[in-house]
């Protein structure tokens, strides 16, 4: 049966949040636009002429793609792990997830640094085990930053995957097993199809959020991993070009929203999430 709708209740439910959005989202965006055009709009041309920016743009995109793919892969396995593991293990896995969610990202990044620096915790462990004497050449390499970024993004894939797994039709699983399907076929015919929508919507969110990475890649991956957010920060905090910063921000906001909308159209992300 269709829910009833009355105009009054729609008005009362919808307008307060819309007004809130107008103030909290609309006004700042308007400010950004004003700021970006302070120098007469030349900022938009200037930013594309800027080598550091275009390079960072490309770098950020590549990084976001890699982080997204890795997070989706690890997240899917993690979600499966939580589902399939004995209850004590899945409780531990969920607890780890929550713990990490509740630790400040900045502090977590420091934690990664302490692990990865040439004579950090990892070296200490290997050294204590007698495996190495040499400092570890890991810090500020690509390998060093991806685990940290994946760890930051993991909850956004694992949580929807967990929901999807708990919704798996047990009868379908039984059916697959009864009809002789081995693990591969069970995965392919029942589990992955059930997982796919959540995995994709989680992935889209991770991608969109990954476009905003800044400190983590810079610290753990080294200065050559300057992202768009980093360049924007630079314009605002160091070179004192707020108009450029605003223009770049607008581009970033616009691009993420457009990417999100396209993905939403293709994969119905917001429906999966809302």
């Amino acid at each position: 049966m269709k829910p009833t709708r009355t105009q009054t209740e729609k008005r009362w439910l919808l307008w307060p949040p819309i007004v809130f959005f107008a103030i909290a989202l609309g006004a700042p965006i308007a400010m950004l636009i004003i700021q970006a055009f302070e120098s007469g709009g030349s900022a938009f041309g200037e930013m594309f002429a800027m080598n550091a920016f275009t390079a960072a743009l490309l770098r950020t995109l590549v990084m976001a793609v890699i982080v997204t793919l890795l997070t989706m892969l690890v997240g899917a396995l993690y979600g499966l792990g939580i589902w399939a593991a004995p209850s004590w293990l899945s409780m531990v896995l969920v607890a780890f997830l929550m713990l990490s969610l509740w630790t400040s990202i900045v502090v977590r990044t420091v934690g990664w640094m302490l692990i990865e620096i040439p004579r950090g915790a990892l070296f200490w462990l290997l050294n204590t085990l007698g495996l190495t004497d040499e400092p570890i050449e890991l810090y500020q390499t690509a390998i060093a930053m991806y685990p940290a970024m994946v760890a930051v993004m993991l909850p956004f894939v694992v949580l929807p995957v967990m929901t999807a797994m708990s919704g798996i039709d047990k009868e379908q699983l039984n059916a697959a097993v009864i009809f002789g399907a081995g693990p591969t076929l069970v995965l392919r015919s029942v589990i992955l199809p059930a997982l796919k929508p959540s995995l994709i919507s989680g992935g889209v969110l991770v991608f969109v959020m990954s476009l905003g990475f800044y400190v983590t890649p810079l610290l753990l991956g080294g200065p050559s991993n300057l992202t768009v957010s980093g360049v924007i920060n630079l314009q605002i905090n160091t070179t004192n070009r707020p108009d450029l910063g605003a223009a770049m921000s607008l581009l970033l906001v616009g691009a993420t929203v457009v990417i999100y909308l396209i993905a939403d159209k293709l994969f119905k992300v917001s429906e999966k999430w809302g």
Partner: protein
Amino acid sequence: MRTMTGALGLYRVPIFAVSVLAGLMLFVPFLVLVATSWTSGSLLLFPPQGFSLRWYEQVLQDPKWMDPFFLSLGVSGVATVIAVIFGTLGALAVTRLSQRSARIVRTLFIVPIALPPVAYAIGLYGMNLELGFLRGTLVTLILGEALIALPYVFVLVSAATGKLDPNLRNAAVTMGAPWTLVLRRVELPLLLPNILAGAIFAFSIVFDEVVLSVFLLPPGVVTLPMKMLSASTEAFSPALTATSTMVSLLALIVLALFAWFSQASARRTRKAASK
């Protein structure tokens, strides 16, 4: 159930292996941080030098840490309340819209997730400067943090509204209940677990928010993440990790209590059902 996990056969090995590795990936940095906080020295080092709780003691006694902590609690609390109100209203509104407009509204509510914090902070800061009466207050900061937290509330509450039997509303309406009564007595009570979950998630996001704070905090006022940030720009002190450890543990305890309560109430319902 034997087929549940048995169906995965040997794939369980890589799945568990990756899960455990990923679990370590989440846990080890936390562990290292915790370890650095119980050092008796004053450098942020792993392995820590000796064991003492002096940094915990210091943080707990130092108003320079405790004030920001309480301020953060307040700011995050208010921002969470705002996010919960508007996120819940939005989630409820979406169920009453036509499919087309629901799509638009849903997208609008999720977009803040995609907002780069730096860009948003600059916009808010501009607004703050433009509207003089906002300066020196926490209004813009709270507004901004509420907006950032809102999508999470929206998503979690929407998940529940989607599962709500639409006939509950219809039933209430045909019995003469005005929509406010339906909202108050039927829908909100049923959505409460998800609203709470949304609130917890939102709070965790806001409590950790630092980019907006940098731009929007009035001079002399410091939130906890801001304090942690500034504590790490001049010196890495174990006070930093001690604070972070305490916050995480506090959160974990609150979450565990929440889980315990909701489980207990679920048990009560089940017991009642089997009666």
